[in-house]
Every structure is written in structure tokens, then in C-alpha cells.
């Protein structure tokens, strides 16, 4: 295995993307086979690299310490493997779901290009290649959202692009600052104390990483994209890839590049971002009336747990955050895919129109149920384990308030999934949707694989924790520290676990109350909370995007540009348009009038000119 092999996860999908783009529509089967084969090769090499763990590819590139430097080590090989796993599931799913879409070729090309950029970003060991790949992801993000093909898709794509660009810009500035502080761009050599300028660098880079993961307040494009973009895209990028990349970078920032201490100001800042994201996003999720939009707010909310976990800066919290990252990617991807399966057969994802699908789509319903329980943190699924670890970490950090926020999030998460599941798969069959069949195997298999992994990672949590998570923390904690998190992971007779289970019971009661109070309509189960006096107003404002920094920013910029146009541009324009042209035309008119075509006139000018010239010469010569 030569170091050059590290180029394979970048070049193979990139080349494949071009090939997929040019294969004509009529050769669909070839396209699908090629895409699956490519993804399978990547998955195979994902395992190979994971077994290998240590490889470095370094060629000089632009000088000034900017090298094309790729480094495979434990953390990056883990993310690489996870990315490859999601890629093959999404590819398989897309072969059916995207089959008849008008821009299917582009979709496949963008997916593989995304994979190439993501692999490159994960492997990069120099900030400049990292930024290069990171920005490439923005391009494919834009392209993938526009494939949604709805009238507002372009607008949402621009929104995602601008928010992403803002976060990335912040990250680039942070990298620049970090460069000045540390003097190198090689990521594996950087480890600085987060004080002074370095603290600013940390915050700016954190914005980049958290923004990629979709934390508040950089999340607002995700619920819009849930409606405007293909659902496969949601399962692919916001649910899986972006979480993996964003949290990977956040972990690298707070573990490697900066030495974040438990309870320090920056750690608390991270925890605040995490806690706020959990609570606010889940409250938005609770009242959604569309399946995909509901899921998209959870995709935001769950990031909060990861950031909160990493922000504790305590081994068990960090491990919980990272474990939650991989767990979330699995169940949220599974949830989006099952929403896509429902959409595929019924043509809608509005909760009101759906109901009782469990009999017609039993496999999708099963996959959804497992993933929903996992995200809600029900024992003994993976979500339970990682959330417990985050709760423990939050409590150990001494800031009980963050643990409470996390628990509040858990209540509403379960409540909203009870509502969603009840509305779509259980309850009474509605008449809006005609009789449907279960989706094709290519759609169901990825859902079931993800559901099975959720069960596996929960029941046998020792496997992922020892195989994937714990080695990441090695070398970042004091020697001899307790690193075995698997021992008490499924223990339900601890105070923390009991509170969590109490939260779930509370959520169930909330849902039941709402269900009974609104005339046994499950999709209205959240209305009692929605209609609380002040809360209702806030919800209305949120739905009107009053709290969306992007929309507000756009409004402010509109106003500003209007002001500049009226106050500065128009007056200047007036000077050019009216004053200058008027003066010019007047002067021209006078000159033209003098040129009246009379020969004698012209001759007179010549003689006058001669006299003046002669006079001038004689004057000047003296």
C-alpha cells in the first residue's frame, strides 16, 4: 500500500462523477451499475484504510508551507469508512428514487463529486487543501438543491450557498489567524493554547465547523431545503455527510488544534450553542405539519447534542458527542429515506393526508419505528447510549443547566416522533391517499440496513465505542484516565438514565393529551403546546422567518442598498447624467455653431492662429 493510494478516495469518485454525467439517459442500467460498483470499491477501500490506519501522502504544492498533504490516521479513516457506507446506501436508494427525475445524471454526478470533496476534506492534513475541498462541497450543495426543481429551489440553493459561504469565510479567516499564531499550515503540527488571538481563531473556525454541521443560527436553509430539495439529498448531505464533516472538524478544532479545557469560556460557549440548538430546533420540529420539514428540524436539533458533548471537554462527553454523530447520521438518514419511501409511493409527505400506512408499507414502517425510537433515545438503541453519555458529560462538567436543556430536548424529540409516527404509519387510514404497495427493495434495503445498525450500535455498543470512538480520544486525556465508556452504557438504574426514561414517559403523556384533546387527530397532537398564549406568537414569528438571520440580513441589505442607491448613487448619477452631459452638449453646440461652412471664416481662424502662434513664440523666446 503506497501513500499514493490515498488519492483513490478523491480521484475515483471525481472521475466517476464526470463519467456519470456523460452517460446518456438510455444507458440508465449502466449508470446505476457503475455508480454502485464505484461506491462498493470506495467502501472496500474504506475498510482497507480503516485496517491500515496510518498513511501519509505529501507533495509540495504552492510553496510557503502550502503542501498537498493527505494524512490517514484513526479518526480520518473512521470518517472515511462512514462516508463510504452512506454513499453506497444513498446510491442504491437513488437508483430507484431518482430514476425518473429530469436531472438524474447531474444528481449522480454531484453525489460522487460531493464524495470526492468530502473524502479530500477528511484526509487533508494541510489547511489549504482542506479549504479547497471544503469549498467544493458548497458547489455541489448548491447544485443538489436546485435539482429539487421547485419554483423556490433556486432561492433556497442560494440561501444555503450564502450561509455556507459565510461560515466558510469565517473558517478561512480563523485559519489565517491560526496560521499567524502557530506559524504552520500542517494540521497535525498545530496545537495552541486558546488565548488572545487564538481564541478568536477558535471561534471563527468553530463557526465554520458548526455551520457545516447545521447548528443554530446557521441552520435556516435546512428546513427550506427539506421542501425544495430531493429527499435523497436530505438523507445524503444534511443528515449524514455534513454532520460527519462538521463534527469531525469541530472535534479536530477543539481536541487537536486548540487545547480546550473543561469549563473554560470557550467550552461553555460551545455548550451554550449546543443547548440552544437542541431546545429551539426541537420546539420548531414539534409543530411541523410536514414529515420532511419535521425531520429537518431534528437534523438541526440533534447537532446540539454533539456540540454539547464536545463542548463539555470531558472524555465521556466528547465520546458521547462523537458517538452521537455517527448514530445520528444513521438514524436520521434512515428517517429521511423512509420519508422518501412514503413520498415515493403516496406522492405526499403532509402529515394530515397520511395515516395507517403500516399495513401497506410494513418494512418502511419498521425501519422508521426503529430509527425514530433511536433518535428519541429509547433503551436499548444507540441513541439512548450516546445521549446518556452526553448527559453524563454535561452533569460532570458542573453546568447542570445544560443537562436539563438536553433532557428538555429529549422530551420534545420523543413527542414529535410520536406525532409523526402516529400520523404516518399508525392511526387511521386516510382517504386522501389511494392504496399503495411497499417500495422496491432498493429503497427498503438501505432503510433496513440503517435500522439494523441502530440496533447493533445500541445493543452491542461496545463494538463501535471501542473500535471507533475511544481511539480518537487516546492521547487527548491524561494518561491512565478512564476510557471505557461501554461498561455502564446500557445501565438503566442510574439516576441519569431514570431521568431520561422519565422524560420519555412525559413525552408520551404529552402526546396522548394532545391527541385526545384535538379530537383524536394525531397530526394535531402538538397543538396544545403550539397554542399556549405567548408561545403561539413566537411560533408565528418563527414561521414568518423573523428569527432567521439570513432573511433578516437580506432585508437589512436590501434597505441598505436602497439607501445607498437613493442617497449616493442617484446624486452622482445625476451629475454624470444631467450636469456633465448638459455642459458637454452646450459646449458642443457652441463649437458647432462656429463651424458654419464659410470658407472665409475658416481662413480667418487660420490667420488668427498664425498671429497668435507667432506672438506666442516671440513672447516665449524672450
Amino acid at each position: 500500500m503506497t501513500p499514493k493510494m490515498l488519492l483513490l478516495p478523491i480521484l475515483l469518485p471525481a472521475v466517476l462523477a464526470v463519467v456519470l454525467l456523460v452517460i446518456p439517459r438510455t444507458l440508465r442500467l449502466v449508470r446505476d451499475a457503475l455508480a454502485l460498483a464505484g461506491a462498493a470499491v470506495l467502501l472496500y477501500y474504506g475498510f482497507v484504510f480503516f485496517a491500515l490506519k496510518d498513511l501519509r501522502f505529501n507533495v509540495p504544492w504552492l510553496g510557503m508551507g502550502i503542501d498537498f498533504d493527505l494524512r490517514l490516521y484513526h479518526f480520518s479513516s473512521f470518517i472515511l469508512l462512514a462516508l463510504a457506507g452512506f454513499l453506497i446506501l444513498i446510491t442504491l436508494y437513488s437508483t430507484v428514487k431518482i430514476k425518473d427525475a429530469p436531472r438524474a445524471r447531474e444528481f449522480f454526478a454531484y453525489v460522487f463529486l460531493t464524495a470526492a470533496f468530502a473524502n479530500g476534506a477528511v484526509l487533508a492534513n494541510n489547511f489549504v487543501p482542506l479549504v479547497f475541498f471544503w469549498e467544493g462541497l458548497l458547489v455541489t450543495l448548491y447544485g443538489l438543491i436546485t435539482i429539487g426543481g421547485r419554483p423556490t429551489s433556486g432561492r433556497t440553493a442560494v440561501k444555503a450557498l450564502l450561509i455556507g459561504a459565510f461560515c466558510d469565510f469565517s473558517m478561512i479567516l480563523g485559519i489565517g489567524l491560526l496560521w499567524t499564531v502557530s506559524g504552520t499550515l500542517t494540521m497535525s503540527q498545530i496545537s495552541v493554547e486558546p488565548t488572545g488571538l487564538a481564541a478568536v481563531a477558535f471561534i471563527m473556525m468553530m463557526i465554520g465547523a458548526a455551520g457545516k454541521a447545521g447548528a443554530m443560527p446557521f441552520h435556516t436553509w435546512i428546513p427550506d431545503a427539506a421542501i425544495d430539495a430531493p429527499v435523497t439529498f436530505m438523507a445524503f448531505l444534511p443528515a449524514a455527510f455534513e454532520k460527519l464533516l462538521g463534527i469531525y472538524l469541530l472535534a479536530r478544532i477543539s481536541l487537536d488544534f486548540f487545547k480546550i479545557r473543561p469549563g473554560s469560556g470557550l467550552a461553555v460557549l460551545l455548550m451554550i450553542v449546543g443547548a440552544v440548538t437542541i431546545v429551539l430546533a426541537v420546539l420548531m420540529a414539534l409543530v411541523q405539519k410536514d414529515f420532511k420539514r419535521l425531520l429537518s428540524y431534528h437534523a438541526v436539533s440533534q447537532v446540539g447534542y454533539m456540540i454539547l458533548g464536545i463542548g463539555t471537554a470531558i472524555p465521556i462527553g466528547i465520546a458521547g458527542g462523537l458517538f452521537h454523530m455517527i448514530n445520528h447520521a444513521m438514524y436520521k438518514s434512515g428517517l429521511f429515506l423512509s420519508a422518501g419511501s412514503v413520498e415515493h409511493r403516496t406522492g405526499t409527505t403532509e402529515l394530515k393526508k397520511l395515516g395507517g400506512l403500516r399495513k401497506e408499507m410494513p418494512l418502511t414502517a419498521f425501519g422508521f419505528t426503529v430509527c425514530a425510537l433511536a433518535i428519541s433515545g429509547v433503551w436499548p438503541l444507540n441513541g439512548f447510549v450516546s445521549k446518556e453519555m452526553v448527559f453524563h458529560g454535561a452533569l460532570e462538567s458542573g453546568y447542570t443547566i445544560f443537562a436539563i436543556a438536553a433532557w428538555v430536548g429529549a422530551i420534545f424529540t420523543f413527542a414529535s416522533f410520536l406525532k409523526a409516527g402516529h400520523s404516518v404509519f399508525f392511526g387511521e387510514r386516510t382517504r386522501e391517499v389511494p392504496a399503495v404497495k411497499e417500495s422496491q427493495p432498493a429503497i427498503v434495503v438501505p432503510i433496513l440496513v440503517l435500522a439494523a445498525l441502530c440496533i447493533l450500535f445500541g445493543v452491542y455498543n461496545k463494538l463501535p465505542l471501542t473500535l471507533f470512538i475511544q481511539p480518537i480520544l487516546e492521547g487527548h486525556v491524561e494518561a491512565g484516565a478512564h476510557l471505557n465508556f461501554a461498561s455502564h452504557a446500557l445501565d438503566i438504574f442510574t439516576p441519569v438514565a431514570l431521568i431520561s426514561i422519565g422524560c420519555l414517559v412525559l413525552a408520551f403523556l404529552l402526546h396522548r393529551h394532545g391527541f385526545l384533546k384535538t379530537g383524536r387527530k394525531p397530526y394535531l397532537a402538538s397543538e396544545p403546546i403550539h397554542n399556549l398564549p405567548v408561545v403561539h406568537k413566537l411560533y408565528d414569528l418563527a414561521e414568518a422567518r423573523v428569527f432567521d438571520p439570513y432573511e433578516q440580513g437580506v432585508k437589512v441589505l436590501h434597505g441598505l442598498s436602497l439607501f445607498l442607491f437613493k442617497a449616493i448613487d442617484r446624486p452622482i448619477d445625476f451629475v454624470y447624467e444631467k450636469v456633465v452631459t448638459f455642459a458637454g452638449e452646450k459646449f458642443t453646440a457652441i463649437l458647432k455653431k462656429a463651424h458654419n461652412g464659410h470658407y472665409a471664416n475658416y481662413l480667418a481662424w487660420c490667420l488668427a492662429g498664425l498671429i497668435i502662434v507667432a506672438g506666442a513664440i516671440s513672447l516665449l523666446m524672450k
Partner: protein
Amino acid sequence: MIILFVALPLVIAGILPLVGKVSRRVVPDLLANATLLFLLVYAAVAGRHFIAAGPVLQQLSWFGEPVAIRLALDGFSLFMLLAIALVGLAACLFSIDYMEHYGAKANYYALFLVMVAGMNGLVLATDLFSVYLFMEVAAVASYALVAFGLGQDELEAAFKYLMLSVVATAFILAGVAVIFGMTGSLEFAAVAKALQELNAGAVVGVASAFFIMGFGLKAALVPFHAWLPDAHPSAPAPISAILSGLLIKVSGVYAMTRIFLNVFGLTPALSTVLMSLGTLSLVVAAFLALGQKDIKRMLAYSSISQVGYVVLGIGIGTPLGIAGGLFHLFNHALAKGLLFLTSGSVQQATGTRNLDEMGGLAKRMPVTAMTNLVGALSISGVPPLNGFWSKLVIIIALVQAGHPVFAVIAVLASVLTLWYYLLMQRKAFFGKLNEKWAAVKEAPFWMTAATVFLALLCVGIGIFFSSTVTTWIQPAADVLADGIHAAIGSWGF
């Protein structure tokens, strides 16, 4: 064999009317274009070889007896010969298709070549009287060419042109007489030497004033410019291109520059007068161009304005200023030639020169519109076209020589230039296609070929401007910067 530059076009011009009796079109086309192509290659390839070891002199002899005609080739003359051959060839190619409907093509080419011979001779002349002589050769041919269409306007314009030109030559002759009276010689070298020793300031001043008026009339500097906007637009388009692109520069700017810089020596007084006249032309003519509705009149006023730039640059008297002025002369010859040729294409296609009647022609004549745009942007000084660099050099030279006010005026006038050229673009080529021109077609092959040739030169020189400057402009500027030493040192027989 530098006499070839004069003799060859003259001989061909003599043959052409006879040939025209036999072949109306093909042979005259071939013969005229081949002559100009030969002159171009001869100037570009052999010419540089000739002057590799300094200026070349040729004493003409008649059966072994020397006669009083001496020709000299140095960097400055070679540079002018190249410009004449380039623009002349483009105009001549253009004429193949354009002159079809005028008839009498052989006579046209004969006059054309006489004009070229006159300009070439003027550029190679080494004495004041030869300057006058060759100037009249070129001028007489040009009177006939302006009137070539034989319409009411053409004849009136040619007559007006003739009348004011006569005034110019009269004053030039007067100036020559003053110089001869003082120094007893007409040779550049001898005059320069004698004036050095005489130290006769006042009389030289009078002669300078006469020359400025005479050559200023030829070069159409304001206030001696009024004949040009009548004469140039009336001529057939290729002739307009030659008149505006070459003749005013050769018989006006070249002659004036040669005499003032190499023979009289540029005094601060002369420098100031030249710069002032240049600036005055620059500004006044730019405003006048702005007010024109006739595309060729607009181009004619633009020529006055750009000659102002050239005179301003040369008038500074510093090596950089002279180089900038000469470079602009060259660039303007190419670009203005190009613009007049495209205006001819437009006029032939639509039958009008009125900008208000045009509109959207780019859709019907894409090549013409494109080449016209290149020419307009080049003259307006838009990078990376050639005109940008020469204006830049002039402005830098102005600032370096301590004339910031002139520099600012030059920049502002350049904005004016861009203004009227954009106006021309908008009215003629952009915008909605005027219904009247729905059936208009692109110009015939040779016409477009000639314009594309010049447009490519504009772009190419813009991109490779530094090599153009070092190979062609710098040797010419060096001769001028040398002042009277160039004439005394190398031309003394």
C-alpha cells in the same frame, strides 16, 4: 535601394491607366495590392536590415551624373514607411470590393499609388524643398481622390480642401524661403548647422510660426482644422482611411516634427506652443465629435482630436514623450483606418452615414461591428488594446516632464473620446435592429478581410506592445530625441 519606395508606386501608377484599358478590374486590383504588399514586406524586412548600421543615404544620379535629389532612411522614416505600407495595404484591399461601383478602378489605383509615392518621398526627403515637393504630389492626388465620386458634395469638399491646402503650402513655402534667405541652403543638415552658428532667434521664430500654420493646416490642428471634417468624409471610405490615418500625419505631423526637432531643434518656446496646440485640438475636437450625427464626420473630428494627442506627446520633447507620441501616431493610423473602413462597409450596406438612422447593425453585420468595436476601444484607450498603451505612455511622460495639468486634460479628453465612441456603437451597432435594415448583409470578403486585418493588428500590438515599441518605435524616437545632431551628424554629405 531606398528609391524603390518612391519609384515603384510611381511607375506602377503610370502603367495602371494603360492596363485599365485592357483589364477593368482583376489586373489593376492585383497590381496595386501587390505593389503595396511589396512595399510592406520591403519596409518590414529589408528596411530594418538597411538601417542596422545607422541611417542610409542615397544620392540619385541620372546616367552617372548626380542630381539634386537625395533620400535618407533612418529609424523615423522607416517607422513612417511601415505605417504607410500597413494602412495603405489595408485600404487597398478594401478597395477591391468597395470601389466596384465607382468605376474607373485603374485610375483610382493610379491616384492612390501616386499619393503613396508622395508620402513615401516626403518621409525620405532630406531637404526642405523636397518636403514641399512631395507634399504637393501627395496632396494633388488626394484632391482628385476626394472628388472621385464626382457628386456635388465631393466636388465642393475637394475644392474647399484644395483652397485651404493651398494656403497651407503657401505659408510653408514662405517659411522655406525665409530659411533659405538666412542660411543659403535647403539641406536639413546644412540648415541645422547654419542655424546653430547664426543664432538668429527672431527670424527662426517667424519661420517657425509659418511652418506651424502650414503644417498645422495639413495636420488639421485646431484652429487650422476646419477643412478636414468636410474633406475626409466626402472621399470614398478607403481614401478617408488614408487621409485621416496617414496623410495628415505624414504631411503634417511628420514634416513638422522632422523640421522642428531635427533641423531647428526644439526650443522650450516651440515645445510650449506645440503642446498647447495639441491640447487645444484634443479637447475642442473631442467636443465637436460628440455633436456629430454623421458617422464619418464624427471619425474626422476624432482624427483632429487624436492628432492633438500625438502633437502633445511629441511636443513634450522628452524621449518618453516622443516615443509615446510616435506610438500613438502609429496606433491611431491603424485604428482610424480601421474605423473609416468599417464606416465604409456600413455606408455601402445601408446607403446612409447618419447615425440616427442606423441601429442594431451588429445583428446583420457581426464582423464589421466587432472590428469597429475594436477600433473604437483602441482609440478610446481601453486596455489591453494598443491605443491604451500609447496614451498611457504620453500621460506618464507628461507627468514625468512636470506637466500635471496637461496630463489631467489628456485623461479627461480620453473619457470624452470613449463617450462619443460608445455613442457611435450604441447608435449604429447595438440596440434594436432598425426595420429598414432587415435585409442588410455583411460586407463582401475583401472589405471584411481588410478590417479584420487591422483589428487583429490593434489587438496584437496591444498585447505585444513592448516588442513593437522596442523594434519600431524606439529607433524612431531615438532619432528625434537626438535633435539636430541626428541631422548634422549623419546626413552631412
